[in-house]
């Protein structure tokens, strides 16, 4: 239908004409931000792809807003004709994250979904390759959620070589020791060789 070149403003108008509930905002030059209800996302993406020529799914991401108990899904679509990007955002429930797959629109979305399923625990209905992707034999909560403590996990599971904790707070150490004298820990570790 409307295949003429669209700018930020015409694009905004067009989206608002079709999707009344969408909150559209021009973030900056070449970036249009669209906020939508979760169930309208798929129709919107399909519309943007087929009728507004946003052919390129540049990015698909998930942000954990643990304070609001919500996940934010972010889709970036790029139009090669208009050189314009729309950023589509929606929020889904964090305790029971469900969404529909995009892989029939863009085959590469499957990869993003597999990663998001593994890292955030979002379930994408219709994607049959969900499962082990990057991690192996992972038990427990998905690691990219904000409430997963990676330091604690690392300390519990992996051997920590002594000496590490000295250098941990680099800021304090650096500000404490001026450039003149060599700090004690540096002396110690420059002499000691790693053996065993």
């Amino acid at each position, binding site marked *: 239908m409307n295949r003429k070149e669209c700018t930020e403003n015409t694009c905004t108008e067009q989206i608002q004409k079709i999707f009344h509930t969408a909150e559209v905002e021009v973030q*900056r030059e*070449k*970036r249009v931000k669209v906020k939508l209800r979760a169930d309208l996302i798929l129709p919107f993406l399909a519309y943007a792809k087929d009728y507004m020529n946003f*052919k*390129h*799914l*540049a*990015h698909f*991401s*998930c*942000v*954990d807003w643990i304070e609001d108990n919500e996940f934010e899904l*972010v889709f*970036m679509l790029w139009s*090669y004709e208009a*050189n314009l*990007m729309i*950023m589509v955002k929606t929020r889904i429930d964090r305790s029971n994250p469900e969404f529909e797959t995009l892989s029939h629109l*863009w*085959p*590469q979305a*499957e*990869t993003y979904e597999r990663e998001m399923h593994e890292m955030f625990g979002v379930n994408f209905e219709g994607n049959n390759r969900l499962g082990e*992707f*990057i*991690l*192996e034999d992972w038990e427990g909560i998905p*690691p*990219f959620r*904000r409430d*997963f403590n*990676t*330091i604690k996990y690392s300390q519990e599971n992996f051997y920590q070589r002594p000496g590490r904790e000295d250098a941990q707070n680099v*800021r304090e150490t650096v*500000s404490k020791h001026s450039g003149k004298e060599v700090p004690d820990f540096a002396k110690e570790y420059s002499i000691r060789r790693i053996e065993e």
Partner: protein
Amino acid sequence: MREKETTLYLGPQHPGITGNIMVKLKVAGDTVVKAETHVGYLHRAFEKLMEQRTWIQCFPIVCRICVPEPDPNEENLARAIEEIEVREVPERAKYIRVMVLELARLATYGLWMGGQSGSMGLYTMPQWTVGDRDYIIDLFEELTGGRIYHMYIWAGGVRRDLPEGFTDRVLKVLDYLESRLPDYDNLLFNNAMFRKRAEGVGIIPKDKALEWGVVGPPLRGCGIKHDVRIDEPYEIYDKLDFEIPTAEGCDVWSRALVRRQEYEQSISIIRQVIDKMPGGDYYNKIPNPLTWKVPPGEAYVKTESARGEFGYYAVSDGSDKPRRIHVRGPAYVHGVSLLEKILVGANVADVSFIMNSLGTCPPEIER
């Protein structure tokens, strides 16, 4: 009747694989019937680690996301922060950044030429190109102190000014690299055997290329002229005069041609940058990095790396640490969904050949 299918694991320990990644192949005779990429061997959870680090501590982390070409990562993060913070970058810093990015592109193409020819058994080429790449690495070392990881491009500009006489040395290296091009041509690009092996191999359907998320040289190898440097010019690319080479054919050969021409374009871009380099400040100083807080906001920035569009999505919630930084490397699409598709029907002998031509870089798939 169908031939008996065998399963062939290519990697993670395999000399032909482009890093620590595994491609599980179902093979009937010599033909690939099904390919599955298995990643995760390099997963360091950068995106998680960055949520634990302050903004300035993220710079040493992001450059490790793509090992052959770390600079687009730094550039992306710096630009994302600048966009959220609305921080001005001095003109000189922009020029220096473009110079560094293009030098990194040259270095990556040197490595790529080596990998591409190494994957088909031409072992003289990697010896030459990787050896020549070291001259660029030496420049980086002088400029930034690091051979591979530079941490040079920071929010607000670059970390330090160019050393005295640096541009002359860059020009000298460029002259040398240009003088080596005829040798490369004779050995690789004019070699009838390379052409014979590369033509008609690893074809990406042209009508599907955009939809499948193909970017960078593979896209331009399909005859589609798209490049972030002209589509959405960042830094000073709109002030420079360069061409975006394309080639028809959609196969390994056309991708090789595109990269070969971009090599020359990069050399000319660096020459222009050095020619136009303004004086002045190189760094718009950020506040004390230890207590540096970035205002709430979000940004999506992208850079044309040697392998294609490199995107960063950064979200700040106003604290001294990022809320989320999500990285979209070109290999994320090329190495998984695209590779799985175009490997079907290929010869077993061409698997690593095709992987190299797509520029599959495992660390940026799983980060």
